[in-house]
């Protein structure tokens, strides 16, 4: 017996008699080709109205939840995605004439607020400092209250990285344009590196370019500056988590505005370095300085270089040691103040004993010595060159000045690598000049 040709009553497609469903529209069929309300459907048809409601509720609530989650997941202050825009905005670049090739010694100067790039609405607690890379002469103002940590200096003295709380950081870095790259070429390379879709904005100038981009959940400002007719490239890069970048933007703008080259790359200009060394006045009392048995008359105030940190570890109450922020052996400097009872010794005897101790531990050689007087106080000064106990090639210079005051001997001692002694020596001279004893 041949099966009669039948058609699906729902869509009209031809169906075989034995088909349980329509192959075209899926409508369930009876054996006679009639639509069936088969029990095979997990939910009977009368419930389909309710199921539609459930579907709408589920999908709608899902979309709503996704929108809510997206609202919190996507940083709102990043605003609408900025598109890549390349503009050409000439800027007065700092063009300096080369004096010499890149030098070998990096120095860093920090000055307090009032340095180039005056504070814009500096609120209480805000402190802006100026970082200068002495090797390349590049300068940037930065908020010391935000970027509180200065990282170790690289061995080639090419820059410095700073970091702060909440994942904030910035670094400056300089190098010679050894490959003779054009600004446009470097910009192109940067845009490829940061990827176009993560680039928020880019702008080229006659002396460099700016790129703002996203990376690993951060917003990064990358500012490139050239000097010496594109002979050197200087980079300032500031990073912040996306969630807080709107707050940092004015800070970044000011830092970028202050980023400049004060002098060409080369050996540090002594005058610039000396003049730029800033100081702060400290009181020994604030550091708990005291000499046993002389509780009242040991206190003094003195100027120490700005940014130098008191060495806490191992310090006795009658010792006050300040260290430069640099942790690289080539740039570490120490300025120490100690006081101890006279015990019948002269200033010369104390200074000589101290020098002898250094000679014993470091193979020091005395290069200068003699009596000095500081104000009305008699004293003795010895300068030595010390072979560092570390593996440093360079020698250290150590100056010891012992002053006799009442029943106490005060020792001022400065230690610094020989190549940067011209700056370090000024710190101890300043200390001697400003040393004032309190009644």
């Amino acid at each position, binding site marked *: 017996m041949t099966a009669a040709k039948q058609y699906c009553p729902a869509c009209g497609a031809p169906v075989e008699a034995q088909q*349980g469903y329509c192959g075209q529209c*899926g409508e369930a069929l009876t*054996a006679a080709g009639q639509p069936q309300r*088969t029990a095979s459907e997990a939910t009977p048809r009368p419930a389909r109205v309710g199921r539609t409601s459930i579907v709408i509720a589920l999908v709608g609530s899902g979309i709503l939840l996704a929108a809510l989650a997206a609202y919190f*997941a996507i940083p709102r202050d990043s605003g609408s*995605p900025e598109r890549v825009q390349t503009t050409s905005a000439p800027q007065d670049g700092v063009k300096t004439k080369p004096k010499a090739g890149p030098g070998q010694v990096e120095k860093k100067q920090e000055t307090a607020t009032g340095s180039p790039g005056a504070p814009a609405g500096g609120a209480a607690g805000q402190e802006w400092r100026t970082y200068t890379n002495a090797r390349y002469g590049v300068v940037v103002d930065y908020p010391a209250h935000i970027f509180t940590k200065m990282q170790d200096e690289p061995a080639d003295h090419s820059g410095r990285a700073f970091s702060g709380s909440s994942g904030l950081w910035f670094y400056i870095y300089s190098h010679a344009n050894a490959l003779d790259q054009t600004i446009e070429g470097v910009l192109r390379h940067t845009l490829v590196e940061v990827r176009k879709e*993560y680039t928020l904005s880019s702008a080229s100038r006659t002396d460099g370019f700016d790129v703002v981009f*996203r990376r690993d959940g951060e917003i990064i400002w990358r500012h490139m500056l050239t000097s010496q007719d594109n002979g050197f490239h200087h980079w300032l890069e500031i990073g912040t988590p996306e969630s807080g970048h709107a707050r940092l933007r004015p800070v970044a703008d000011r830092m970028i505005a202050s980023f400049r080259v004060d002098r060409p790359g080369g050996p540090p200009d002594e005058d610039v370095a000396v003049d730029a060394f800033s100081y702060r006045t400290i009181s020994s009392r604030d550091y708990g300085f005291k000499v046993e048995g002389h509780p009242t008359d040991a206190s003094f105030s003195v100027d120490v270089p700005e940014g130098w940190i008191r060495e806490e570890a191992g310090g006795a109450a009658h010792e006050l040691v300040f260290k430069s922020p640099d942790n690289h052996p080539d740039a570490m400097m120490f300025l120490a103040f100690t006081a101890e009872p006279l015990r019948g010794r002269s200033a010369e005897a104390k200074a000589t004993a101290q020098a002898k101790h250094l000679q014993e531990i470091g193979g020091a050689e005395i290069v200068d010595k003699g009596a000095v007087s500081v104000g009305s106080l008699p004293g003795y000064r010895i300068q030595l060159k010390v072979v560092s106990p570390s593996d440093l090639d360079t020698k250290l210079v150590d100056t010891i000045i012992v002053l006799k005051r009442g029943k106490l001997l005060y020792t001022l001692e400065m230690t610094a690598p020989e190549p940067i002694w011209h700056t370090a020596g000024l710190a101890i001279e300043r200390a001697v000049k400003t040393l004032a004893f309190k009644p």
Partner: protein
Amino acid sequence: MQFSLREQIAGESRRLVKIGALAATGLLLIGIASLFFDDPAHVFFRMLSLLGTGLLIASAALMVITFRKAKKVVPGALLVSLATTLLALLVSTAFMPQTPAFATGGAAFLAGMLVGGGWSMTTLYFIDGDIVRSRGTAWYLVVWVVILTINQLLGAFARTVPSFAIFALIVATGIAVGSITGQLLRYRKATQLMTQAPKPAASGETP
């Protein structure tokens, strides 16, 4: 004829491997063809972009044409699909520059699950002899269009935000997981009906 779950998974895996091999061959051919141009990388990605657009249009057309057609439900294929979806999410997050917070990611996944669960309810399930079949309803198409539209709009306007890319991926994974889980549950219910209830005369078998 019903196959065991293991056979279904193996069969689906073989199918995926075949598709993967075909896709890899296609990519290789496009790559070779690109080498004949001045800027091979540009041409390669341009062709990929065009191919992607073509595939999107084709898949949309195929969906509109076939969503009402009854298809055999193969739980093994659904399980393989579930596994590959989750694997894709894991691999993608490993290479993403950032991942969302647990709460945000969880909410995104849950949102996707809700949509996917709702989507899985927009199909009709049929028992055809010893086979379970399903076909989409108009709602199936509506939900699909909504998801596709939102996805494409977001892709067009928010693709530069990396955190959004991973967010969208998590939602999409949630949709897939919710949908597949819903289908598996309904398949289970249908098979239970098959074993519990006497075979109806109108089950599709010839009396």
